[in-house]
């Protein structure tokens, strides 16, 4: 009974929370529609500050940031949106559009990475888990009913292969997510220095919106490299570090 009450209250709370967030989202959209992009961006940020996120929320924030002239912040937000909804054509279209506005060297996603990115990390995880469970279910069934072994042979092999394949991709994606990092420059006049110090010599000057690979991290600095092989240290205030390469 207590559990039922708890579940009911939790559902009510979730329902109210969603309604509140949807109302604030609509208000932010209204700001955007009226051309008040900075206010809209602030409102979207406030929503994200609640801990809730959705592809639409990140997408709209990105739009507002772009309209405000913040290419880097827009790209970072689009990438967040793409992480949650990797097959959303509108997100990809706007991300590409904004990327086209960025000047200077920047790293680009490889083709095979792009293919792997068709599914999000969570989706790869679920796909692998489903294949894993089904494969083991068939293997278990074969132990319990040896007579089925012949009939389940092909399916079992396919599922084991699928598990291994999906698991491999998942491993690659997970490695990219948990170890590799991308830094998006979010200030118009960032200067990458040869060392993690304010008075270090300037190595190169990435433009706002440039996407850089993170090589190392030291206190409030990240060592980055651009697509042309230049590397340097940028303060964390100049970049937004995202998971994934």
């Amino acid at each position, binding site marked *: 009974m207590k559990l039922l009450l708890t579940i009911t209250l939790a559902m009510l709370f979730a329902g109210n929370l*969603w309604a509140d*967030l*949807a109302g604030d*989202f609509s208000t932010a*959209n*209204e700001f*955007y*529609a*009226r051309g008040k992009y900075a206010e809209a961006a602030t409102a979207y940020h406030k929503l994200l500050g609640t*801990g*809730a*996120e*959705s*592809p*639409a*929320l990140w*997408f*709209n924030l990105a*739009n*507002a940031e*772009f*309209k405000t002239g913040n290419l880097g912040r827009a790209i970072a937000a689009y990438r967040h949106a793409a992480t*949650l909804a990797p097959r959303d*054509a*509108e997100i*990809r*279209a*706007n*991300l*590409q*559009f*904004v*990327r086209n506005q960025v000047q200077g060297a920047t790293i680009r996603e490889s*083709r095979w990475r*792009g*293919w792997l990115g068709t599914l999000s*990390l*969570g989706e790869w*995880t*679920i796909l692998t*888990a489903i294949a*894993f*469970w089904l494969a*083991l*279910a068939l*293997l*278990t069934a074969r*132990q*319990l009913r*040896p007579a089925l072994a012949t009939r389940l042979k092909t399916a079992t092999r396919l599922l084991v292969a699928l598990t291994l394949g999906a698991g491999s991709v*998942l491993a690659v994606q*997970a490695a990219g*997510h*948990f170890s590799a990092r991308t830094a998006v420059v979010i200030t118009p006049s960032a200067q990458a220095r040869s060392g993690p110090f304010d008075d270090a010599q300037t190595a190169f000057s990435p433009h706002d919106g440039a996407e850089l690979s993170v090589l190392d991290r030291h206190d409030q600095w990240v060592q980055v490299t651009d697509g042309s092989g230049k590397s340097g240290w940028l303060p964390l205030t100049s970049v937004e570090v995202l998971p994934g390469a």
Partner: protein
Amino acid sequence: MMRFLSKTWLVMIATALLQGVAAAASFTASLDREALTLGEQATLSLKFEGADTQNPPGLPAIPGLQFQYVGPSTSFSFINGQTSSSITYNYLVIPQRDGQFTIPAMRIQVGGQTLTSNPLKLTVTKPGAPSADDVNAGNEVAFLKFVLPKKQVYLGEPIVGTLELYLRDDVQNINGFQLTSSPTDGFSAGKVIEQNNQKRRVQMGQRTYTIIPLALPLTAVRTGPLTLGPFTANLGVILPGQNQGGDPFFRQFFNQGEQRQVSLGTDPFSVEVLPLPAQNRPAGFTGAVGDFTMSFSAGPTNLTVGDPITARVQISGHGALDAVTLAVPDSWQNFKAYPPTSKFEPADQYGFAGTKTFEQILTPQNSDVRELPAYTFAFFNPDDGQYHHLTQPAIPLTLHAAAANPLPATAGNRATPENANPQDILPVKEHLGTLAFAGTPLLAQPGFLALQAVPVLAFLGALVWRKRTDSLANNPRLRRQRAVAQLVATGLNDLDKFAAANRSEEFFALLFRLMQEQLGERLDVPASAITEADVDNRLVRLGASAATLESLRELFQLCNQARYAPVRGTGELNSLAAKLKPALAELQGLKP
């Protein structure tokens, strides 16, 4: 020189005062007016002649009258060698209500003698419009009239009432006009606006009056018979002074005139507020009352689903524009409408005419939208008492589906000539979508990882089970061992039951069978072939204890005897069962 003159003057005053004390003292009370209307003030003067008073005397409390001390004034006269002096204490008398008041005689002790004043009467009347006779006779210095162009107005209809301030031709100047009461129940009243450019003069009786109109914007907010007023006001007027003798040339420069405070009032004005007719009321009517025109524009008309369209509606004319709202018609259901903004540009000083501009942001919800449907604005015109509507025809739209917009030239997406060069980003999404809470990816959540152990454990369980099953299937002796163990377990229970029921025949039959089955399994021979002789011959080799062998031997013998004399007591059967159990247990532990 000035100091010398001042000292001389003070000496003269002091001398006069001293002589005045010696003269007979008097105390006189007087009012400058015996009648006044509520809102006006009178001056009470307490004059002491030939008496030396240092402080203003206290006044009796009179309900309905309020006294406010103004200050003293002194006078000094020297006539025919006789000097006299007086001091007058002045008070403002402010009536709080209408009625007849009496200021009683006051007794004041001054210099050892008691002085008594005369009682005074004061009449306070309610304000109101003066009578026509008074006006025509020119008795009224100033008066107020309220004028409304109509006696019947519609609910929500704006109308401008006028307070006309009449000033007699001898009024030199006015100041301090202040409305003290303006009852407008049932109406929303605006600010009173003086209309100096509409001053005019009229002849009333033998006098000429100047009319100063004061506009009062009103909007009826309640239906039924209503009353406006009586409006009351206070006004300071400056009239020519009483002593205006002498040369008129000098008089115009030096005579400042006499200031008088007058109280003004109007008669109440009855007006009937009619409800808006229910008949023929248009569906989209939102309460706009007046006479209006409309202009409508919307853009852009070539856009993508989700792009905003700004619809601009301008309502111009005269009426209660402040209350005009923009209603989103039902035909716009394919558009998401944000709350409109509005801007009002008044064309008159009352806010009853001008242009109200609404901006409505609309976003098409799907690509099937082909037009912005017609917009109709309905209003009620109180001049002809009818509803009217203004319609803006539908505006064609060219909409592109969002998905058909430029997709990036990424893997699996080739740009088409149509969308190769997008001009702008795609618009924001209207719906929040499925919410998630940012946190650790599923892959790294301990609960999820622990869950993956379930199929593994299930598989391992099945594997073990399969191995044991196969092992059993390939080992008949093991299979027999398990079957006998099962048989013995259930048999021993049955044995107890037979003993309890004293069913000796079944008891011994079962006892014999259990021993045969267990010994046969251990000795790997058919159970039916087991006899008492096998206990000695073969069981000894397996290492059975002597006690067990003895028990088994005894039990076999008893079983044989029971075939001929089966009847035994329950206690004896129980002891036999107790003997069998440890023996069988030991047998099961022997290695064959």
